[in-house]
């Protein structure tokens, strides 16, 4: 292998695959975690507004620090995104359970409203900063393209924290499935567990969004496929979702890079193509089980 080929593999291809694995694992883990914490089969980083909150925060950082390109994000960006994601999920949660109707659908409708509101804020910021609009736009569609390991280095610590917290607490998600009252009777502090799990999932989402933009549907498609294969215990669902999510995104990226070569289909478009129809399927079955 020539030096040039080695550089292509080590500095372009490999970091891209590793980034895809990490982002896919995070989004799928966060989706599974939200579904358990909210006892809602439709919960997902996108439908809850977490991704939109993170996206707005990242856009704001780029817009207000002119000269920053998406390629070289300052290392604090995932934390800003985390703040945005937490605010968005908190808003969704407050709006979604404030009414008397506590059906899974009302939480998701609140998430859609919050997402739309935050996306509007993001569009406004982008219009105000037309110079950065192209960069932000290509990031918005989701991208794993990278020339080096900096995104992986940026994501890795946050991903590790998220994975450790969620996987350690995964038994509590099973206990939460009997409802808060009965979970309390079994010795849990359900609200405390929920806050911790949602915060961890939002951190993972935010870190993934910071480096790769908005890649939808991984968080809902993967945990549901795992559920079909491995049953309903979160102790199996969460670790398997990480593995499946990683594989799914790496393969989706491969498809996006090769189908229209030499042009690339943005990864977010590929996952939406696969995930959109799947989501409709989940909606139909979830209606039978839950609503």
């Amino acid at each position, binding site marked *: 292998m020539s030096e040039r080929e080695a550089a292509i593999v080590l500095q372009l291809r490999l970091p891209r695959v590793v980034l895809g694995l990490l982002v896919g694992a995070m989004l799928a883990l966060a989706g599974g975690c939200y579904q358990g914490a909210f006892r809602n089969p439709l919960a997902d980083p996108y439908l809850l507004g977490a991704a939109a909150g993170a996206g707005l925060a990242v856009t704001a950082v780029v817009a207000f620090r002119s000269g920053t390109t998406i390629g070289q994000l300052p290392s604090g960006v995932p934390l800003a995104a985390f703040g945005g994601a937490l605010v968005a999920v908190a808003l969704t949660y407050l709006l979604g359970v404030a009414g008397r109707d506590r059906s899974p659908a009302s939480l998701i409708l609140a998430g859609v409203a919050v997402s739309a509101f935050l996306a509007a804020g993001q569009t406004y910021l982008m219009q105000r900063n037309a110079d950065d609009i192209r960069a932000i736009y290509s990031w918005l569609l989701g991208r794993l393209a990278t020339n080096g390991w900096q995104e992986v280095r940026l994501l890795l610590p946050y991903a590790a924290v998220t994975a450790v917290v969620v996987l350690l607490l995964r038994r509590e998600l099973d206990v939460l*499935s*009997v409802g808060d009252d009965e979970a*309390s009777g079994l010795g849990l502090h359900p609200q405390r567990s929920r806050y911790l799990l949602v915060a961890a999932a939002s951190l993972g989402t935010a870190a993934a969004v910071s480096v790769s933009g908005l890649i939808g549907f991984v968080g809902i498609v993967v945990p549901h496929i795992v559920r079909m294969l491995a049953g309903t215990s979160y102790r199996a669902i969460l670790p398997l979702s990480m593995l499946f999510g990683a594989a799914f995104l790496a393969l989706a990226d491969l498809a996006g890079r090769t189908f229209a070569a030499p042009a690339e289909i943005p990864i977010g478009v590929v996952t939406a193509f696969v995930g959109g129809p799947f989501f409709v399927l989940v909606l139909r079955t979830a209606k039978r089980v839950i609503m």
Partner: protein
Amino acid sequence: MTAIVVRDLHVTLGRAPILRGVSLTVDAGEWVTVIGPNGAGKSTLLRAVGGLLPAGDAVSLLGTPVARLRRRALARTVATVAQSPVVPPGMSVFDYVLLGRTPFVSPLGRESASDVAAVRSVLDRLDLSGFGDRELATLSGGERQRAFLARALAQEASLLLLDEPTSALDIGHQQEVLELVDTLRRDSGLTVLATMHDLSIAGGYADRLVLLSEGAVVASGTPREVLTEETLTRFYRARVRVVDSEDGPVVVPLRAGSDGSVAPQRF
């Protein structure tokens, strides 16, 4: 020894006072059933005893005020079967009963072999060993009630709270479940505090009844002392006749306008 002591318990939810100074005691090994009209506060009383509502020092379990017990310690002391427990979709009976071991599993750990063994023995005792792999949601009403009971027993708590344990069951399964609870109580020395709607059944299985009305105890004692025509007429606004049988008093509802004799059925 007194297992449960409730002394002057007041509970207010929102602005509505639900319990206004309830006092009762349950001796170790005793079965006490709380009866009362809808909205009397029966379920709220049970939730407060189970530590699910802040009760301060008004509720003591085995000599310790509930407020001073940590959640996990509480879950090893008292086990509750809710009125209509949540049935998690897709969960197997074994996994469901295993949730009852939660107070024994360290927060970040997993169940040990002894937890699994405890679940197996509970399933055996409740005649559910063949159901372990079945999905909880596919069980019939009576089987499901046994599974709920199994989860509570897996907590190995000596106090068992049952909120309307038989309201979803036909009369045969009601008897089956209550006989089972009574057997478990005798064999394992459980103390049972239950709420129930069916007065005759309530009287047939309890050592003592406590009648709750508008958040206060208005009568308590043996079934014969509490289930009287006068008391039931007054607090339930019901027309009933109480017939004494060898198993205790039987409450027979009467049609309007009848004067103590059972009304003929109209078609």
